[in-house]
């Protein structure tokens, strides 16, 4: 039996974890959400939920992976019993479904980096370029390339592949973001953008939408509840302290988001300072969806600034680095699961690449399908996070804290507040998010909100969740047996 590979040092899991957490969501979603939610005021609940939702969930995940030395399904089975392994299967499926289309997004970033560097994208009409790109066969080709590169990195193993790649990608990403910030802040009227970003209009805190958006941004951006950091923790050392790693990832992720906002928002303000300037106009731009802002507006914005082509290439390079570092964590999650089931790393990766290419293909060629999948499974992460909470509740929060989280020889220990957080605050936050989403959907479209055929409805989400959950509960005995009985320790 081969001995399991571990990260070369403590920094290995920190770099890999930062790579997992800092993704395209930090660069394209955060600046958009913070602008829509009124700028500065949003930052207060966003920081608060880092402590109330994201860091506790990251602590739970790292502890489970480190204790059980199994992937997500095996971890659930070992912690709360094989009858509940289906919760781990659901968490795995949600992240895998996201990986299918995330690979498409990674391909877009790669394409835009190449197009800016070699095809003079900045001189072209960005809207036309986006439409002609997405309606061609190229997204499928770049989807294939992204999976190929990701597969190659994880095939090299935990130390030579994942750890080495993230040791290069993460510091480079932070350097690129800092360069983009310096450029952004040296543009005319940039400080108006900074003023908007950091003006704490406290009246906005009375709006519950600000709080719920802050919670969802923190949860989805840090990767809490995805099962990704649990997978990396399988390769951590015994002395690894889950609390320290979680806070490093949480704060590092928030720092990357802030840098991205400083790079994007003042650039938008600067662009409009030379035109018909108004906050309303800026908000209109920031209200464009993720793809709209990044692939249509950003090339437009950079085309108007000095050395714009160079900085646009830099922006898409940073975005590609962020996307790849997250994509490999998603691919490794499935690789670990298949290795738990007895596959070799090589066979597991080959299977994942083929499945991800085939199942991600519809998202590569149809924006409608892409949008539906993004909607259904990014909301599924809410349930994934709740399943981790249930696992701790079933195990007993005090018992979990003392026997699973506690690191021998470490001076940093969790206190009773963790129990209170798991028993009351995590479930409350889940119910608030779920209730808010139901209410918003119903009040927004009372006739269509439960229509299964409508791509953005509650109905289509619940329908796909129920099918997945039903299937996993039905097959639980077979899956749990496979995951928990295999002795493959590599």
């Amino acid at each position, binding site marked *: 039996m081969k001995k399991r590979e571990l990260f070369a040092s403590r920094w290995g899991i920190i770099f890999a974890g930062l790579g997992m957490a800092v993704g395209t969501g930090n660069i394209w979603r955060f600046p958009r959400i913070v602008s829509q939610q009124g700028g500065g005021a949003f930052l207060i609940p966003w920081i608060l939920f880092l402590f109330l939702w994201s860091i506790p969930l990251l602590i739970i995940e790292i502890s489970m992976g480190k204790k059980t030395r199994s992937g997500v399904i095996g971890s659930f089975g070992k912690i709360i019993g094989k009858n509940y392994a289906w919760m781990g299967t659901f968490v795995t499926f949600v992240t895998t479904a996201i990986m299918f289309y995330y690979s498409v997004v990674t391909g877009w970033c790669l394409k835009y980096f190449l197009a800016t560097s070699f095809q003079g994208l900045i001189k072209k009409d960005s809207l036309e370029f986006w439409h002609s790109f997405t309606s061609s066969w190229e997204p499928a080709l770049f989807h294939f390339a992204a999976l190929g590169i990701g597969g190659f990195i994880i095939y090299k193993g935990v130390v030579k592949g994942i750890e080495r790649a993230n040791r290069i990608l993460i510091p480079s990403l932070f350097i690129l973001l800092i360069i983009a910030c310096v450029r952004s802040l040296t543009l005319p009227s940039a400080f108006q953008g900074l003023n908007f970003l*950091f003006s704490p209009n406290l009246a906005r805190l009375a709006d519950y939408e600000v709080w719920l958006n802050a919670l969802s941004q923190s949860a989805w951006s840090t990767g809490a509840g995805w099962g990704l950091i649990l997978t990396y923790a399988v390769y951590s050392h015994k002395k690894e302290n889950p609390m320290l790693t979680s806070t490093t990832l949480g704060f590092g992720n928030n*720092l990357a988001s*802030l840098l991205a906002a400083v790079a994007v928002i003042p650039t938008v303000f600067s662009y409009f300072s030379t035109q018909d300037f108004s906050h309303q106009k800026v908000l209109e731009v920031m209200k464009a969806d993720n793809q709209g802002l990044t692939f249509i507006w950003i090339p437009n914005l950079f085309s108007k600034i000095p050395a714009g082509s160079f900085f646009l290439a830099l922006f898409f390079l940073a975005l590609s680095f962020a996307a790849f570092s997250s994509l490999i964590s998603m691919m490794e999650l499935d690789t670990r699961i298949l290795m738990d089931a007895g596959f070799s790393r090589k066979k597991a990766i080959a299977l994942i690449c083929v499945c991800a290419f085939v199942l991600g293909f519809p998202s590569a060629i149809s924006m409608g399908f892409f949008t539906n999948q993004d909607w259904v499974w990014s909301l599924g992460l809410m349930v994934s996070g709740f399943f981790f909470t249930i696992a701790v509740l079933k195990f007993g929060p005090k018992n979990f804290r003392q026997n699973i989280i506690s690191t021998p020889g*470490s001076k940093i220990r969790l206190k009773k507040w963790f129990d209170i957080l798991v028993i009351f605050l995590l479930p409350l936050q889940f119910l608030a998010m779920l209730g808010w989403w139901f209410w918003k959907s119903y009040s927004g479209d009372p006739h269509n909100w439960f229509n299964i055929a409508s791509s953005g409805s509650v109905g289509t989400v619940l329908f796909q969740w129920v099918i997945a959950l039903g299937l996993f509960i039905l097959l639980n005995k077979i899956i749990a047996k496979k995951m928990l009985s295999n002795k493959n320790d590599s």
Partner: protein
Amino acid sequence: MTLEAFLFMIFIFAVCLGGFGYSLYLSSKNK
């Protein structure tokens, strides 16, 4: 940029950068 926004920016960066830096420092000490 107003003084209020400037101070708030310092505060937010201090929390994130400080938290990140301190966690990295403790990691390097291997506590």
